[in-house]
């Protein structure tokens, strides 16, 4: 009796299974990645109603973060500046700039400028800015080099795993409280570590501060979820 199936069909089943597995794995990984904060969030760079440049205000003019985000050290929120704050300068500087028209309109009408929100922690997580910036966590750790951005984008995924990474290894991020808003600060700026004779490294200064300030970030649910 002749073979009904040609010889090559012998390997068909394993090949199909292998291929099928590959397709399923790829799909799974793809969907997985599609849902991760890394894909969904990082790089989100919406167009804002006013083309405000952080790089101009911070790098060129030398404004401190806290001039506009004035309550970051006392409140959970880092407040977006009021129109009044913008107009403190812009009544005199670039007072006629068309780019600033929405700000002037807002000031005249009392209707706020609606900035597009970029960083968003879910409702069930209670992030508190003041708990971080008062204890040596710099803006740059979560927001990236915002001082160099012309248009702000999301730099870090800000998911729970990412949060816990710092909460478990805070020595890798801590810096002196005075340097929190200096986004270009490097540990080496502190000079030579007398203990090693070399410039300070992040791990050295971070560990030192962590011990001195008794930094113990919460790693259980109730730290952030209430």
């Amino acid at each position, binding site marked *: 009796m002749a073979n009904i199936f040609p010889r090559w069909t012998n390997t068909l089943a394993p090949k199909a299974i292998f291929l099928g597995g590959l397709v399923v794995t790829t799909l799974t990984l793809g969907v997985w990645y*599609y*849902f991760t904060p890394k894909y*969904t*969030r990082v790089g*989100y760079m*919406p167009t804002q109603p006013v083309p405000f440049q952080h790089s101009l205000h911070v790098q060129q003019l030398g404004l401190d973060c806290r001039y506009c985000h004035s*309550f970051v*050290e*006392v*409140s*959970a*929120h880092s*407040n*977006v*500046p*009021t*129109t*009044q*704050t913008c107009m403190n300068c812009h009544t005199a500087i670039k007072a006629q700039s068309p780019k600033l028209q929405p700000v002037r309109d*807002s*000031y005249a009408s*009392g*209707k*706020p*400028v*609606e*900035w*597009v*929100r970029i960083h*968003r922690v*879910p*409702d*069930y997580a*209670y992030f*508190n800015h*003041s*708990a971080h910036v*008062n*204890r*040596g966590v710099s803006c740059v750790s979560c927001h990236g080099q915002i001082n160099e951005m012309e248009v702000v984008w999301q730099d870090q995924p800000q998911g729970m795993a990412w949060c816990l990474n710092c909460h478990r290894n805070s020595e890798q991020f801590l810096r*002196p*409280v005075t340097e929190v808003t200096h986004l270009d600060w490097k540990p080496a700026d502190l000079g030579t570590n007398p203990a090693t004779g070399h410039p300070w490294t992040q791990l050295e200064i971070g560990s030192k*501060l962590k011990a*001195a*300030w*008794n930094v*113990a970030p*919460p790693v*259980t*649910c*109730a*730290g952030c*979820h*209430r």
Partner: protein
Amino acid sequence: MKRVFQHPPETPNVNGRKYWRSLGELNDTPEFRGWLEREFPAGAAEMEGDGLSRRNFLQLMGASLALAGFGLSGCRRPETYLVPYTKAVEWTIPGKNVLYATSMPRRRGAMPLVATTTEGRPIKLEGNSLHPLSNGATDPYAQCALLDLYDPDRARFFLEGGKPVDVAKFTAFMKGTRESLLASGGQGAAILVEETFSPTRDRLRAELSQEFPNLLWCVYDPLRPFNDVEATRAAFGDGVRLTHRFDRADVILSLDADFLNLDEGGIEATRDFSNRRRVASAEDSMNRLYVVENRYTITGGKADHRLRLPASQVGAFAVALGRKVAGLLGGAGAPLGNLLGAFPAEMAGRFAKQDQWLTEVAADLLAARGKGLVLAGERQPAGVHLLVQAINGVLGNVGHTVVAHASESRGGAEPTSISGLAEAIDARKVQTLFILGGNPVYNALANLNWVERQKSVPTVVRLGYYDDETSEHAAWHVPMAHFLEQWGDTRSADGTYCVIQPMILPLFGGLSDLQVLNLLLGQDPHDDPTLVRATFEEIGGKTANFPADKALAWNAFLRDGFLPGSAAPDSESGFNVGAAIGYLKANIPAQFPPPTPEGSVEVVLISDYKVDDGRYANNGWLQEMPHPITKMAWDNAILVNAATARKFGLHYANFENGDYSADGAASDNMAEITVGGTKVRAAVLLSPGHADNSVSIALGYGRRRTGRVGRHTGFDAYPLRTAQNTYFVPAARIAPVAENYQLVVTQQHQAMEGRNLVRELPVATYKENAGFIYGEDEQAKRSFVEMMGMDAHIPPNVSLYRNPSYDSIHQWGMAIDLNTCTGCNACVVACQAENNIPVVGKDQVGRGRAMQWIRIDRYYSTIEDNDPLHDPTQDEDPQILTQPVTCHHCENAPCETVCPVNATIHTEEGLNAMAYNRCIGTRYCSNNCPYKVRRFNFFNYNDRSIEPIEEGVMSHVWKGKSQAYLGPFGKNGMEESLKLVKNPNVTVRMRGVMEKCTFCVQRIEEAKITQLQVARDSNNKLVPRDSFTTACAQVCPAGAIVFGNVADPESKVSVVKRRDTDYKMLEYLNVRPRLSYQARLRNPNPAMPGAAAVGNTLLGAPANVPPAVEKEGGSEKKTHSEDPRKEAPEGQHKV
């Protein structure tokens, strides 16, 4: 070999007392066993309706999910916006709360408050601890005021003849009215207000009466304290107000006075009483409380000796007591003797059975001369108050525990009563009637037939918070502003001048009473403080040390919320016997009725702990709060004791051998009360400890026209209330009615087997045993309270699990003092307000799905039949204990080990935390919780409204169940205004999520972060000692709940936990709760009848009963739950 741990057996004989929460428990009915053995009551986990099983539901859900399609459109975040202020708002920091002082006007004087506002909306009210009458505590009404503010059913429109009109039209109308009234000097105009003690309103009234000399000014509030005022006026003269100093009283006799009711006695009565009740060490003295009342009140629950007596006989009882006191005093009692001469001799003779009781109370009061206090209930007739004042007088208590104050002059003539107003209406003297607040159509005295009278007035202008019964018959309805929306002022009970500051603009554009009066004066309806400020400067100018800089003083006034030094001064007036005798002679027959004749029953119209006079009927938090004594939610009922119910053939819910069912529904449980031609129908509820031949029914329910929450709740008892019988109807008929009504009673929800959960002992026993420690081993050392009952027979604990090390600097713990807890429910509602706990509705409560995180267990206790102290005559006299139970935050939490998704875990600081977004709703945790404190969101209570069931779709399914959760048939989405009441720092939970007390973790985190802001680059992370507390501890007027850092040996909570009376509930389970209790102490008078049985519990003597240890082999015996951790050391553990 399998080893099964057996719980130590219940040892009823060790403890001479039996504690039960319901009659079902007392009789151990099968229905009660059902409640006991399940984490949630039977049926709580089932779907509604007959045709919709869980399986059907899943099939439907599966199909609809498939039909809905599986799109990815929802995966991307929608664009959202950050909206800053255009100009910064003074004091406002986005994300931070701002606190303002304000006050809540109340019928006995203002409650000083501090309002927490977040971004312009008030989210929580606390007491103002700066104020002399406050200890920072509040009561359920103040807590629930917030929900009233955001009530979506509030009156929203100006109505003319029931049609919405513009505000301008109303202002024009008021202008026209003013013009026409000016011509006649106010002839034909009357104003009916509620008492608010507002000096500004008094000032406006004076201005009005200058312009309109003929204007009639009337005050009405159905529960307004009236009798003691009248008695004081008769005996002490005008302008005197008596206050009671519980902080100075050693022996207190309450004659039907529920002074621990926070509305009746105020915060200060509970605070001062509890301070004298608290026993921290063997050296502390403790006051003694005698209570005479007809139904159990929370004051009766705190009594050391309690006597059941019909309310109508309390007056005669006072006469009998007066005779005893006068007799004992001899010559010094002459003034009292003269007074008593006015009474018929027969009266004192009615109490032959209680003779020993009377003699010993009188002797005790006499022994505590100057430190005793006799009180008469607020709605007992004025004659009873007079007598009580006379008794206090001869006992030398006046000037010590009873202090006479000069009441501030209010100006103007004495306001007309509502009866006077009714007469004026009859005489056609009223053409324009302004009703500012109140709801007379619903709650006026029945003999006035107010509806018809109001209809006969040509123009009625009604300022009302709801479009209610009174608005229905008014030409104009004006929405009223909430006290958190208006400028105003008021006085607290001691006369201190307090400010009412607005926290938010009127949500629905309402006006305050001051604004309406101002309109009548031809002024603009200001919404600024001009009016109040003028009054403030006038009153302030009269106080000592008033600063010359008025602006500075005004700012201090707004900051503190009150004006120091403005309290009423003491009065020189004394008790005038002659005047008192004159008053009594005229009033004895009316005020001291004969005993209720055989075949009739006395009906007592009580004010309710929940809806007040009916004004809070639409408040879901209050409606759902279980009544402190009956534990009934959402309704009122005719309360009756078993003997009386049997006598009149009443079928009552919640009872007796087979006639009992778990959901409180019994067959034909309705009854009809007949007084003259008036009939009132209501459901009957059995209430142990009620007086014989007496029934009680609470006022304030059965509202006809109110919001969605209050409709179809309870029964209206106001038709029974007349000018003759304002508080009790001495003789009425009662008969059963063949109708059924479902009541929901929560007393069996989350029941636990009687394992000495609640502990009490006489104070003398405590003092004998204080400091005594059992056990030599450091680990096993326990105080005598810890050894009470079966705890004496428990082998040392062994844990199978590794204990986490709790070495963080903050370790949170709580202590609840059962000795001072009155069971007032303030903590239950404060927790609800703080933690965004939803209202689930009557139907869901009936299924055991109530969500409050704190429950207050109310235990009745009686002596076991086989106990030598058992006295059959005392069987109808159970005692009451209350015990708040919330999450114990066990260090070895059983709930945590069974969670498959780690949604409940322990924090470094000893909190048993819930991560809601991780919870998948297996409910294993609540199954494994020995305290039954976990609550499950069976439905989306926050997203779907609960509704009174009326005609319409599906009404047949929910027939007879009012306030039901309708699921998909209900309205979807939370009302906009109700979103504003939510605390932004607490997650709003959704369906399918377990929740429970968190020890207010949001407050803990806020305190820690605030300290981090201080610490900055230092290691000073320790939160200052006792610098914050949980919502329940903050609200507790008795100071019974203490919360803090147990790692700090000097913190308040650590100090309390070191007391000898400290014990942990179910300690033998070795779950190591962070919540501990301090045992209830009672202070019986040894000479009283039945004194030996009061609070008496034989201490568990270890030798009495053989210790209960693990049994070998599988046992047939059914156990409450099996706890593997109780097994022998690890190696032997096999499953």
